């Protein structure tokens, strides 16, 4: 009886401290393990992590926009544009100088990231300088970017990239760790440092927490907002490059689910939609969780249309649970 009560007490405490995510992860693990024998295997778990890297990168970028009190609905488009521009530039460079493989890969990657980051920069200018709401700005840019991507390719996939690009960045591995995971881990480390140990990181929280107070404290709020969207664009385009390598073609129709999934990953991880609150490590967990659910549903042969329903429902559930958490905080004794 008392043991039972202390257990509930601990569960409550964990709920308050850590949020809904650990509970959702645990439930998902149990459910999918029961539904499929292939789920809880080392190979599949590595698979989950690898598949989640693309979303993880985008979600971390999305977190910056959310921290400043906005969001970015154009991350999907950034992925697509990066893919198309990067692939075209790479294929073009490779065709022009078939011997310089590494150089053409580099040119392609830089071109792709530049294109995607440019979209982020335009978002940033709109939001910070012209005070356009992040919703309208990024929605508008989503359409602009998607239009450009389609216009550049006529809607057909871009072929002609050197084999080595896909082999290295899509399927390659170093010391047994797949390249996409390696890249993601490095970026997680860098961003963790930026968020927690640099002034810029602190300024993101300050601007989202109270933009007026931030201004009175001498922070360049416009620059901070601008950089949040630039970082978001950059992260989405790195994700776009890695995905392009995996697909071996430049595609204009990738990333459509990214805006929802990246925001979901952040919100499930406890990032406040009103800005100023959120932790990078939780966001990484949030993205992994979504990857885990998708993988589990695939193994359990749940239809892909239904999967979309589940992701949307999970997002709403997470927000509701977070409301309960806030109410608990008021009642729980420490």
């Amino acid at each position, binding site marked *: 009886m008392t043991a039972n009560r202390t257990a509930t007490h601990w569960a409550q405490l964990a709920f308050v401290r850590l949020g809904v995510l650990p509970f959702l992860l645990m439930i998902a693990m149990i459910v999918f393990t029961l539904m499929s024998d292939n789920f809880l295997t080392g190979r599949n778990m590595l698979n989950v992590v690898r598949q989640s890297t693309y979303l993880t990168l985008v979600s971390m970028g999305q977190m910056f926009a959310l921290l400043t009190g906005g969001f970015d609905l154009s991350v999907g488009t950034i992925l697509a544009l990066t893919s198309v521009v990067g692939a075209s530039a790479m294929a073009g460079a490779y065709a022009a100088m078939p011997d310089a493989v590494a150089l053409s890969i580099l040119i392609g990657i830089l071109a792709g990231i530049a294109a995607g980051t440019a979209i982020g920069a335009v978002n940033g200018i709109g939001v910070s300088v012209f005070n356009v709401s992040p919703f309208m700005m990024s929605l508008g840019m989503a359409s602009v970017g998607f239009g450009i991507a389609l216009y550049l390719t006529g809607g057909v996939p871009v072929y002609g990239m050197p084999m080595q690009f896909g082999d290295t960045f899509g399927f390659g591995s170093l010391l047994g760790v797949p390249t996409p995971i390696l890249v993601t881990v490095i970026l997680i480390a860098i961003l963790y440092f930026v968020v927690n140990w640099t002034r810029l990181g602190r300024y993101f929280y300050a601007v989202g927490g109270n933009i007026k107070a931030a201004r*009175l404290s*001498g922070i360049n709020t416009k620059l901070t907002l601008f950089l949040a969207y630039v970082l978001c664009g950059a992260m989405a385009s790195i994700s776009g490059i890695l995905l392009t390598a995996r697909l071996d073609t430049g595609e204009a129709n990738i990333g459509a689910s990214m805006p929802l999934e990246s925001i979901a990953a952040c919100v499930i991880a406890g990032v406040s939609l009103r800005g100023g609150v959120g932790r990078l490590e939780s966001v990484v967990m949030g993205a992994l969780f979504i990857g885990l659910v998708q993988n589990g549903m695939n193994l359990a042969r749940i239809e892909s249309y239904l999967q979309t329903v589940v992701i949307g429902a999970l997002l709403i559930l997470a927000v509701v649970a977070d409301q309960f958490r806030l109410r608990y905080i008021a009642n729980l004794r420490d």
Partner: protein
Amino acid sequence: MNSDVQDSGSPFVGDPPLLKLERITKRYPGVLALDQVDFDLRPGEVHVLFGENGAGKSTIISIIAGALRPDAGRIEFRGRQIALASVHHARSLGISAVFQEFSLVPQLTVEQNLFLGAEETSWGRLNKSALHENAAEILKRLGFPLRPTQRVEYLSRAEQQMVEIAKAFRSDLSVLILDEPTASLTHRETEQLFALIEQVKAQGVGIVYITHRMSEIRHIGDRITVLRDGRYVATVDSETAEDELVRLMTGRVIDQIFPHISYRPGEAMLEVENLTTEDGTVTGVSMNVRRGEIVGLAGLVGCGKSEVARACFGLIPVSGGRTLFNGEETTGLPPRQMLDRGFFYVPPDRRGEGLLMMRSVRENIALPALSLPDFSRGSVLRRHAESARTAALAERLNLQPLRVEREVDHFSGGNQQKVLLAKSLTRDVELFVFDEPTVGVDVGTRAAIYEFIRDLCESGAAILLISSDLPEILHLTNRVYVMCRGSLAAELSGEEISQESVLRHCFERKAA
């Protein structure tokens, strides 16, 4: 009339209490905010709740107003036990509250805010003209100079406070709760509010009133309940001497609130020449503030006293005149550059533009100084130095509880104010502008803040004190500028500074 009961001049004496709280307990994580507190309210009385910052005053009234549920204890309303489910429920019983922290919707107009949740409709259609008329009527009754169609986000803190107060008066009242309603009001609005309180008192409304200002207790209080650390201390009548009240509240004796200050005016730090702002709140103001002195800036709500300082700090666009800081022209420079030159502005509205409510005390205090070598090397933060410095500052200002990693939102109002003040100590500052620095601060802390201001002054800083609290202006400053409707009405110094002279100039313009 029942003669055993001590007569306090109220026609309702001897009536059963309107409201009765018994052994109310309320916990927050890690804090016992209320520990078995008793409280009762009779019809037609003003019952003052008195106590230090964090004593639990706001918590009690949140419970009475239905915004919080107690963990234990019972509440009786007109002799019947009730369980308040929400603010809405409390309102339906005629219990109406003005909270310390505002609950206005910034994007809506004054009138929309006044009737939010109680809009008059006919067949589901909003009756907009009735809304407008009722709003105008309430504002007129209260004598508040507000336009009903103005959007709340453009109002100053004092004006928002007026909207909050007007909101409480809108419906049929039986219990009126006012949590530091005059904290940013000036004399005139306060008088109007008190007149209204007298009116509703005569109708048998019971009023719970929270204030840190002694003069107000004297003025309108009937009974006073003193709380300390979440516990009930005593209920006394309003004749009780001031010292005794402070002793009950703090458990110790505070001999003097206002310190003695020796001013040594030096060279001018801030010079304002013929300043006019684009929005018309300030026209043709000239003044200066020198090192080693405390200059007061007084005036009614909306007279532009705050705006002068805000324009100098680069928060409001200037359309005419110029400002010089330390001899250098700085007209229109943004806050960032003013800060770097040693100008620090402490805003009046801690929640609105002072603090990041959901971030920790540490992050808040360090924010203005993150670019300094004390807090960062290049763009990398020195987190250990940051923790040490901010903890020391929090301790210096006597933050309670002294937990710098806690979110600011979880501190009581007065302690949030301390965090706001601590921010100004992180950098080298030559001119401090304190805009209503003691809003919602208890007597003991207030004395500490005044000493803090004195120390800054005596160590050679220039100080501009903008305040609606007249005693503060009278006791702390050696020079006072009085403003009226956007321009300067008078400059007083030394012996000329008195309640009469300041008030007189508040109301009339100097005959140019």
